[in-house]
């Protein structure tokens, strides 16, 4: 099987664009990624398009109506917060299998403001409040307090994640917000679901990101190897059986499973990784994922954030983009936008937030809903 290379990638600056359509947002990122690779839509042999909220509405084909109708196969994918990463992985799979050798992956989303509903048909009986909650903040508050139960992790330690990621975003011109949020401000913000305050919840924004992937032979043929980034691992998992997962959807086991498989596929370990973009949909999620991704021993993530090990300049910088907490979280775009951030560092083009000497990076997305399930996708990337 051929190795797969990332040869073009870009994202629009995340924000709120109610005047645009989802296919328009997708088209903008697609053209930027094609320009980055020096290719055109006519060079693409297939399109994998990720979007959640218009999953029944052929976003990929509508995008091609705006940038070039070449008759290629279009696969529209939806997979909760891993939607963009799933589109990227389907593109990787097609090349790996030898079906295509130059492929476009796009992720785009338009989000409303406010709290996301859990999905599903509205019932006559509204369980919200009567039978707990299905809100996204509540899911990840449970995750945080489970960690507190196991290891004594504090509200303050979770809040420090948000301080760090907002700090990183001040150096990222493509982030929705570029403002510092001191610890007192984060902890004093409106409590949404204890221990996550409003500033510890990701920002609902519109956005898009796109990537061009190629086989090794195609990258050489097109003269793109000098800028190519090798995909060392592309792994996806769904929640494995656990009785508690059926009551409160699991995001830990599904990530540990994916991490184990990704490190094995890459022949690498956590110590080989220079920087990470992980799924900080809520501040509580970031700390548990330090452990799930093997960045530290179980129970050590609170100490890690206290010691600044994941801040720029630290042992293993995490979420240099500002993360979903500050860059923003347009669900379908997030998985490719995370890959854009890693690629930008591996190319040495991240400006003020550049992780010096970055050679290998890892992206992680993980999503799901109560009573439905979860998904996790991990990519390990290397500048060759």
């Amino acid at each position, binding site marked *: 099987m051929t190795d797969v290379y990332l040869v073009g990638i870009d994202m629009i600056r995340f924000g709120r664009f109610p005047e645009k359509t989802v296919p328009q947002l997708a088209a903008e990122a697609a053209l930027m990624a094609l320009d980055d690779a020096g290719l055109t839509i006519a060079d693409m042999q297939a399109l994998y398009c990720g979007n959640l909220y218009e999953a029944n509405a052929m976003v990929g084909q509508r995008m091609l109506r705006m940038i070039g109708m070449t008759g290629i196969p279009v696969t529209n994918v939806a997979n909760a917060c891993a939607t963009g990463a799933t589109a990227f992985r389907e593109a990787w799979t097609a090349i790996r299998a030898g079906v295509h050798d130059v492929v476009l992956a796009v992720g785009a989303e338009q989000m409303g403001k406010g*709290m996301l*509903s859990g999905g599903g048909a509205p019932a*006559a*009986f*509204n*369980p*919200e*409040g*009567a*039978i*707990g*909650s299905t*809100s996204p*903040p*509540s899911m990840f*508050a*449970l*995750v*945080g*307090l*489970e960690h507190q*139960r196991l290891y004594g992790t504090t509200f303050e330690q979770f809040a420090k994640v948000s301080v760090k990621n907002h700090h990183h975003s001040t150096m990222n011109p493509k982030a929705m917000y570029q403002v510092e949020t001191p610890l007192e401000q984060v902890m004093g913000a*409106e*409590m*949404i*679901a*204890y*221990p996550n305050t409003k500033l510890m919840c990701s920002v609902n924004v519109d956005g898009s990101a796109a990537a061009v992937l190629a086989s090794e032979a195609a990258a050489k043929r097109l003269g793109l190897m000098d800028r190519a980034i090798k995909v060392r691992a592309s792994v996806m998992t769904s929640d494995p*059986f656990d*009785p*508690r997962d*059926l*009551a*409160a959807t699991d995001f830990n086991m599904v990530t540990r499973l994916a991490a184990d498989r990704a490190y094995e596929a890459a022949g690498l370990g956590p110590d080989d990784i220079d920087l990470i973009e992980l799924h900080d949909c809520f501040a509580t999620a970031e700390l548990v994922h330090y452990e799930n991704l093997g960045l530290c021993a179980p129970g050590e993530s609170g100490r890690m954030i206290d010691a600044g090990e994941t801040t720029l300049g630290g042992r293993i910088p995490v979420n240099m983009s500002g993360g979903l907490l500050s860059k923003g979280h347009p669900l379908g775009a997030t998985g490719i936008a995370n890959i854009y951030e890693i690629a930008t560092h591996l190319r040495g083009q991240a400006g003020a937030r550049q992780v010096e000497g970055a050679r290998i990076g890892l992206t992680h997305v993980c999503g799901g809903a*109560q*009573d439905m399930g979860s998904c996790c996708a991990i990519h390990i990337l290397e500048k060759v």
Partner: protein
Amino acid sequence: MEAGSNFVPAIPQLRIPADAPPYLAGARCADCGQVYLARPVACPKCFSRREMAEVALAERGKLYSYTIIHRSFPGVKVPFVMAVVDLDDGATLRGTLADIVPDPAAIRFDMPVRLTFRDSGQLDAAGQPYLSYIFVPDEEAA
């Protein structure tokens, strides 16, 4: 639950017998014994396809994790405590924990809780009240 009321179940698994207290009807795998609230087609744990017996879920358990919801969807009364409870029969159930101060200082991991049934305050299209399940601190076990 008041006698003689015309309660309707808030969720399909909630049973309201005429001559006995309400309960949650789950299913137990005939091979591995895992208990489920929502009856699967085959066992997601051991893949057994044997017919699962209906069982009443355990009414006692321990608090595994929780959160205090301060902001929910429009129209939902806050704050409230959302609990994840490991039931004594091996199933885990999500629900609201009532009769407790919604403050981390008042809530303890592993505290014993009891499953009970109360009027949800919501009515169906015919005007009948929905009976729902809810957790309360288990004073007897405390």
